[in-house]
């Protein structure tokens, strides 16, 4: 497999007079990518990333990436939903607020009490789920800074295959450790198949 085969890498040269955005190194399998990521991590880069068609487990560790904290956003919003469910039912059905434009309305139904938590549990539950679901989706988008339609990796012709069957490591020229020559030398030592120079 990958370890035994000798790989040849095509390496592009930067063009004079164009703005360098970063490097993009293509891999054709998960193992080479993972080993490559470990090397980039150890070289101390920060503004770099791996791109894969599906989540690759173990790559987080190879990249030295921190685990996600989306769950705290979800927990906070879920709790807000629970309290919202409790509060709106109390506000709307259990009490009347004199002289308010937005006041409650006490329905007298079959002699039931105006305020009875068991009857309010289904709505509290549903609102907890609703708020948490929105939090996990929009929280994920927020943490990932999506939608981002313009990114330096998209200046590449080959990058489209990341959603098919190719794997990439991208290093942005904005990385403090980025150096046109040294970064290129470091990347060309990895088991990639194509080193692309991204320019505007």
């Amino acid at each position, binding site marked *: *497999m*990958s*370890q*035994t085969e000798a790989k040849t890498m095509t390496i592009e040269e930067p063009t004079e007079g164009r703005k360098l955005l970063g490097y993009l190194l293509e891999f054709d399998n*998960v*193992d080479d990518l*993972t080993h490559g990521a470990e090397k980039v991590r150890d070289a101390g880069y920060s503004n770099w*990333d*791996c*791109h*894969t*068609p*599906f*989540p*690759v*487990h*173990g*790559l*987080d560790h*190879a*990249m030295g*990436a*921190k*685990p*996600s904290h*989306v769950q705290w956003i*979800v927990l906070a919003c879920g709790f807000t939903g629970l309290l919202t469910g409790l509060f709106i*039912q109390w506000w*709307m*059905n259990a009490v009347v607020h004199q002289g308010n*434009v*937005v006041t*409650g*309305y006490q329905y007298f*139904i079959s002699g039931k009490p105006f305020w009875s938590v068991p009857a309010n549990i*289904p*709505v509290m*539950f*549903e*609102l907890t*789920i*609703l708020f*948490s*679901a*929105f939090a996990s*989706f929009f929280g*994920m988008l927020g*943490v*990932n800074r*999506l*939608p981002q*339609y313009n990114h330096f*990796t*998209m200046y590449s012709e080959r*990058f489209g295959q*990341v*959603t*098919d*069957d190719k794997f*990439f490591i991208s290093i942005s020229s904005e990385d403090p450790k980025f150096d046109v020559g040294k970064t290129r030398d470091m990347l060309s030592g990895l088991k990639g198949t194509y080193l692309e120079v991204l320019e505007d």
Partner: protein
Amino acid sequence: MAKTLTKPLSQLSTELDNTRDQISQPPLVTGGKTFGNITEIVARVAEHPSAPKAWYVAFAGAVMLFGLLFAMLAYLISTGVGVWGVNTPVAWGFAIVNFVFWIGIGHAGTLISAILYLFRQKWRTGINRFAEAMTIFAVFAAGIFPLVHVGRVWVVYWIFPIPNQQQLWPQFRSPLLWDVFAITTYLLTSLLFWYMGMVPDLATFRDRAKTKVRKIVYGLFALGWRGSNRQWIHYEKAYLLLAALATPLVLSVHSVVSFDFATSQLPGWHTTIFPPYFVAGAIFGGFAMVVFLAVPARELFGLKNLITLQHFDHMNKIIMATGMIVGYAYAMEFFIAWYGGNPLETFTFENRATGPYAWAYWIMVTCNVFIPQVFWFKKARTNLWVMWIVSVFVNIGMWFERFVIVVSSLSRDFLPSSWDYYTPTWVDLCTLAGSFGLFFFFFLLFCRYMPIVAIAEVKGVLPEAHPGHGAHAAAEAKA
């Protein structure tokens, strides 16, 4: 085995029965596919300039039925609910039957997506997208009925707690209002879950698109996804959380729907068995609908290696198991009616099995309890024709279950002088047919233009997707 069905669009490979003769874990994807193959198989459906002929035939039928639904709703709204067959004592008729039926169909999608995800059942990847889409369109179809049955559709926003001039609020002690919250939450959460799972696949479509329009449309919906691992980390966590949230949700939704009945005082409705019984029935009917749609879809769109016989084997087992839970509930209702000693309850159930609606009751029992028993046999579980026909019967049976619950209980109320026989009008029947039109209209469009299999997830269950697989394989080869 499947050779008897229509000739598939795909000539990619022959079918492999991966349900038998396995020593260890059978492969989830058959035919020795690579990452690129999977992309190709799924994307080709949407990229092909023309759909299979059967698609056009089905779509034309769906459009006509959808049009019929519009006509019926226009007639209903312009004339009034008198065009329906509902009257005293059967004040809840087809609208509620259809509503519960469609909501039930909508349960399998989230079950497959969320519960099987949490249980690490990797076989879900082949069918989850498909089932999620089915859920959403089934909830669309379901949502129409409560909206129109209120009579004055134009003030239907009153069911939501919106500040208003009347200073009135919805009445939160009513299960009908819980229903509003449950269904709304379910629709929105399922939509988010579906869309979120689809983002990486839409990016695949974007990157493969040839025309400018497709590039831009898929591109906008893909949100600029670039497969970044730093993003995958958050994405996977959020997806797991959504699954964890959707699991109790899916169980709650049909429980809440059953409260509409169970909190009333009508014999035949007022039973504590209703929430679990409704949930089991919903999963039962929903899975049957998945099988009903998946069998032709995999043939038409060449997805045999992604939706394999093993998937169907699993689903048919679930259908049989939930069918028997439903059968147990039927039996238990009768037992409690007898054991409880309440004469009204006893009469209701005697009436159900022998009264004027006995025909509906026995259709229900036959379709839901007896017919799925064929799935004890592996031959039946892996035969596409058999499972497809059973799935049709189960859907019929589940519709009749709701009919029996709603109509047979109401038609014999506490006052014998008001007893009556409910007959649907032609408007009722056409509206039911039209709701199928709405469902298939959206579903067929989805099949044609969206990633019908979760591409990224299927790739993730291939052995090559895990680091160390290469070294492992090499070591094995040496040994």
